[in-house]
């Protein structure tokens, strides 16, 4: 009774029920993934009944472990290869687009702003089908690694633009203007002043593109051509319902660990180098709404 009266008197107090819901949600959202990771260490062939701890599905089994099964290894390699290519192409394009859009005061900037936001709100299946049709019917690009890269870069660019533009807007044009006043050429001011200021955002862009690429399923699947261009998500999609071994969980775990490690690293580097910069919330719909006004 006293607790209730206290809570009533002080609305900022701790409502236990809400706290319980929140913690239950956190448990519900994370524990299943933890259990799936745990089952990659199962001693038996089951992915649902615990039969003791072993590392056979990681490296012990001579045929079906992650280390020895060629199809599992090739899926990991293809995932990493695509992530690398995606990063190499999407980040420079996105940084250029962000710089161009922020500093360009012309008629063309507005439509390009819209164009850049559309890939963010288009359902992936729509994007994948349009790419499939245009590659097959118009461009004559064969499905496979090239097509997968082209597709992944297309949806990655916009994320890079949003991250880099947020940083550009918070920097403002003053530093470049100062550099120009001191005699730097336009390109020199960009290279010596603006670009170093953008390093944290560019770094964050690399990591976000890495994670987007690793996690992508729809576009990568539509652009794939059989076994050799299978990535880990495609492998999971194909095998999850079948009678597969915990090696599948182990492969998925490799990718989860890779993504979380890179994101964790990025977070600390970003915080360390961009201290006191307000984070920009990149909600595509809000961005479009902001343009509208």
């Amino acid at each position, binding site marked *: 009774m006293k607790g209730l009266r206290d809570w009533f008197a002080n609305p900022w107090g701790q409502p236990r029920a809400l706290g319980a819901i929140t913690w239950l949600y956190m448990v519900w*959202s994370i524990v299943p993934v933890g259990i799936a990771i745990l089952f990659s260490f199962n001693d038996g062939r089951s992915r649902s009944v615990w039969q003791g701890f072993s590392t056979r599905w990681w490296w012990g089994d001579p045929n079906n472990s992650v280390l020895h099964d060629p199809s599992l290894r090739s899926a990991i390699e293809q995932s990493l290869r695509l992530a690398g290519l995606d990063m190499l192409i999407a980040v420079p394009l996105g940084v250029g687009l962000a710089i161009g859009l922020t500093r360009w005061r012309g008629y063309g900037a507005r439509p390009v702003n819209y164009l850049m936001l559309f890939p963010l709100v288009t359902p992936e299946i729509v994007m994948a089908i349009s790419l499939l049709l245009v590659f097959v019917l118009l461009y004559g690009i064969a499905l496979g690694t090239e097509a997968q890269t082209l597709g992944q870069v297309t949806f990655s660019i916009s994320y890079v633009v949003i991250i880099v533009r947020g940083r550009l807007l918070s920097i403002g044009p003053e530093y470049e203007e100062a550099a120009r006043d001191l005699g730097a050429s336009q390109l020199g001011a960009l290279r010596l002043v603006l670009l170093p200021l953008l390093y944290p955002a560019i770094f964050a862009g690399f990591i976000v593109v890495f994670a987007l690429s690793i996690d992508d399923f729809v576009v990568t699947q539509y652009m794939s051509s059989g076994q050799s261009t299978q990535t880990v998500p495609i492998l999971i999609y194909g095998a999850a319902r079948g009678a597969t071994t915990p090696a599948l*969980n182990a492969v998925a775990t490799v990718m989860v660990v890779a993504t979380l490690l890179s994101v964790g690293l990025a977070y600390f580097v970003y915080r360390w180098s961009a201290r006191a910069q307000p984070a920009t919330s990149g909600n595509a719909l809000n961005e479009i709404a902001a343009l509208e006004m």
Partner: protein
Amino acid sequence: MTRRWFWPSFALPGVAWLVLLFLVPTYAVVAVAFGTVDPIFSQPVPVWNPLHWQFAGMRSVLAGLEPGHAFWTVFVRTFAYVALSLLGCLLIGYPVAYYLARHARRTKGLLLVLLVIPFWVSYLMRMLAWIGLLLPDGLVNKTLMDVGILSRPYGWLDGQASSVVLALIYGYVPYLILPLYATLDRIDRSVLEAGRDLGASPIRTFLHVTLPLSRHGILAASVLIALPMFGDYYTNDLISNSPRTSMIGNQINLFFQEGTQRTVGASLVIVLSVFLALLMSYYLWVTVRASAETKESLL
């Protein structure tokens, strides 16, 4: 002296990329939907000139959309699943976002990290995790039988609508909570204190101050997760894999993965896209109107 072309030239490669690999492909879908079909190889032949468009594919899709026909059933089912999932997401997500924004103190940092983790765990991995739990001999059935709710294993993965909706909720709720949290976090505490000072109970303050102020955030977050949910097919394939629960995304995927009737598939993509564009326009209209009202009230 800024040369006119200096800044646009940085944007040029990115713009060219998006035109060639986003705009042109989008038009390719239209050209295929209104194109013809090669009679021998039954491959779609795109018609790029709007003056020569054929409407057979679109007509058959629109005929299928009439009440009682094949696409109608799929569309209604998709709506029902998305609506139920959205409702579930809001029922779970709003209290969590509210607690994070208003009440979490020392644990806030930890909770935010936990909240963001699902963003970086592959969606397919999160579904794989649930498949393991929902298998006949999985933990869910085992727990329910131990407690005595079930007497024998329930086939959660055998085409159950409830499993699909729950999986959609599980998959998309993180994307709802984060923007909702941002909205609730921005609400000025002084207006809540004003409500309390004027004698409103905490519940009345919530209903008359917090809820109206977060209305726009609720709408934004809902649209944000509804758009990809309408195009989702993999959740359904993984959790149910039965035509009984097939959604619009599954229907489209079927037309393209099997390679037959791509003209009809492309028409279906256009119908879906037009519907989603309307949904987004509604959202933008509400946003613009709300901001205009704010400006007026400030003047």
